[in-house]
C-alpha cells in the first residue's frame, strides 16, 4: 500500500476548479516531483494534504489514516515547508528546533539535524532568525520540516534562496533520507534541479493531473537523439532518411533519432564515405518535455 494516497479530490472557487479529480500516490522512500505552472494547483494540493484546506469530494489517506480539514491525526508523521519557512523572528535556529520538537516524543537529534541542514555554523549560533538571510531561513525551514522524523516530507520550492552549493547539499540530504525510507513530495520551478532529484513526477495543469509517471518512463517517451557534425551534412541527411531514421537539420547540425544503436548510424555514415567530426547525445529534458506537454494540454482544451 502506498504511504500517501490522494484519491479524486476536488475543490472549486466559484466556477474555477482549483483541484479537479486530483489522484496520485507516493510510495515510501520515493521522491515525487509535483510539477506545473504557476496557479496550476500545486500549493493547493499540498495544503489539502496537510489539512489546511477543505476539499469537496474525494479522500486523502496517509499510512492508512484519513486526512481532512478537521482530522489531523495522521499529520504527526508529515513534515512540511509550504511556500515560505515558518519562522519566529525572535527565536534562534536551535530555539526553533526545540519549539517544534515539543510536538513529538521522538524528535530528530538536534546536533545531527543542524549539521545535515547546515544550520550549525557560526552564522547561526545565537543570532535571532530576524537577522537570517533568505537562504538561512530556507535551511532552517527544511530542518523544521525534518524535526519530527517524518515518514513523508512535503517541500514547496525548497531550493528558493539557496546558493548552488546549498542546493547540491540539499539534494544529497533528500536523497540520503529517501534511501532511509522517507518519502518526499516536492514542488519546484527549478526543473533542472528537480530532474536530478526525483524518482516520480506528477504533472498538474489547471487543477488537473495530466501525467503521473516514473522519471525513467517519462523520458522513455523521448527518443534519444544524436547531433552530428559531418564532412557532408546534407549527404548524411539523405543517407539517414534512406535508412528510415528520423533526421533533420538543427542549427546547421544533423539530428538523427529512431536508430536502434548509435553504432549502426556511425557504421552507415562511414560506409557512405562521410567523416564524423563531432557527435553529441541528447537525452530527455524535463523542462522541454514539460513545456511541450503543457502546450499540448492547453491546445486540447
Amino acid at each position, binding site marked *: 500500500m502506498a504511504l500517501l494516497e490522494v484519491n479524486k479530490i476536488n475543490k472549486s472557487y466559484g466556477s474555477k476548479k482549483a483541484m479537479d479529480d486530483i489522484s496520485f500516490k507516493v510510495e515510501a522512500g520515493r521522491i515525487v516531483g509535483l510539477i506545473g505552472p504557476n496557479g496550476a494547483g500545486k500549493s493547493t494540493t499540498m*495544503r489539502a494534504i*496537510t*489539512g*489546511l*484546506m*477543505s476539499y469537496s469530494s474525494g479522500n486523502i489517506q496517509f499510512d492508512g489514516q484519513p486526512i481532512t480539514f*478537521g482530522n*489531523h*491525526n*495522521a*499529520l*504527526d508523521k*508529515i513534515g*512540511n515547508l*509550504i*511556500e*515560505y*519557512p*515558518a*519562522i*519566529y*523572528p*525572535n*527565536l534562534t535556529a536551535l*530555539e526553533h528546533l*526545540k*519549539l*517544534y520538537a*515539543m*510536538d513529538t516524543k521522538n524528535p530528530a537529534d538536534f546536533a545531527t539535524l543542524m549539521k545535515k541542514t547546515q544550520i550549525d555554523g557560526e552564522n547561526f549560533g545565537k543570532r535571532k532568525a530576524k537577522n537570517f538571510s533568505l537562504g538561512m531561513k530556507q535551511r532552517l525551514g527544511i530542518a*523544521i520540516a525534518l524535526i519530527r522524523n517524518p515518514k513523508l516530507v512535503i517541500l514547496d520550492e525548497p531550493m528558493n534562496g539557496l546558493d548552488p552549493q546549498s542546493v547540491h547539499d540539499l539534494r544529497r540530504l533528500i536523497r540520503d533520507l529517501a534511501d532511509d525510507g522517507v518519502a518526499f513530495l516536492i514542488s519546484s520551478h527549478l526543473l533542472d534541479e528537480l530532474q536530478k532529484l526525483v524518482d516520480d513526477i506528477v504533472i498538474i495543469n489547471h487543477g488537473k493531473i495530466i501525467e503521473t509517471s516514473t522519471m525513467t518512463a517519462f523520458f522513455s517517451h523521448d527518443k534519444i537523439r544524436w547531433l552530428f557534425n559531418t564532412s557532408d551534412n546534407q549527404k548524411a541527411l539523405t543517407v539517414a532518411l534512406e535508412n528510415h531514421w528520423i533526421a533533420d537539420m538543427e542549427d546547421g547540425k544533423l539530428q538523427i533519432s529512431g536508430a536502434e544503436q548509435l553504432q549502426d548510424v556511425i557504421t552507415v555514415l562511414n560506409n557512405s564515405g562521410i567523416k564524423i567530426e563531432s557527435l553529441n547525445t541528447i537525452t530527455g529534458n524535463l523542462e522541454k518535455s514539460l513545456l511541450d506537454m503543457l502546450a499540448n494540454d492547453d491546445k486540447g482544451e
Partner: protein
Amino acid sequence: MLTLMKQEYYKAFKQNKLYIWLALSFVFPIAIMAIFKTQRTADAVLNFGQGTIYIVMAGIIFTAISVSQEFGFGTIRPLLSRRFSRGAIFTSKLLLNLTVYIGLFISAFVGTMIGQLLFVKKFNFADKAGYVGNGWQSMGTTVLTTLLEMFFIAALVLIITNLVKSSGAAIGLGVVMIVGTPILSSISSVLINMAPILKWNPFNIFLGIGMYNQLPHQEFKHIVHMSESNVIMAYVGYIIVMYGISYLIFRKRSV
C-alpha cells in the same frame, strides 16, 4: 493541550516585549503615585495607581498580536497542520492570554503595594472602601471587573483579528472601547431611546460593567436601565457568544 500550552509559553517568554509590558505594569502605579500628588489617595491605590487602563491596553494588544503574528510570520500553517485540533490551538492561545492578564495584574499589584508604602502610608486596606467592603475586597472587585472588561474587549479584538488577519484594526477598536466611553455612551443612549429593549445592546452592558460596584444600586439602575445581576448575565452571555464567533472564524479559515 499541554504540548500546545508549552509551545505558546515558550514563544511568548522568548519575546522581550512581554517582559517590557510586565515591567511597565509594575512601574506604572509607582510612577503615577510618585509624579502626581493628586493620585496619592485610597481610590488610586484601589485602582492600581490607575494602572487598570494600562493593564487592559497591554492585554488587548497582546491578545491581538498573539493571533495576528502567526499570520504575519507565516507560522500559522505549521501551527495548524499538526495533529492538534483547531479548537485546542485556539484554547491554548486563550489560556496564554489569560496568563498574561494575570501576570499584568500581579506586576501592577506589587507596584501598587510599593507605591502605597512609599506615597500613601496612611492608607489601610482593612478600612472600609467604596461600596463593597474593605480595601482588599474593593481591590478584588476592581480586578474582577477589569478582567471581565478585558475578556469582553479581547473577544471583540479576536473576532476582528481573525477576520482581517492583522492586529492594527483590532487594536484600534480595542482602544476605542477602552477610552471612548463618551462615544459608546452616546451610541447606547440613542439605541435605548429608539426602543427600550435595546437596553441590552453591548455598549450599554459594557458601560454597565465599568460602573459595577461603583454606584449605589438605585443610581446604577437609573443609568444602565437594569440591575447589576442582569448586567453581569448579559455581559457573560456576550463574552461567550463573541468567543464562539471568534472560534468559528478561526476554525473555518483556510490558510
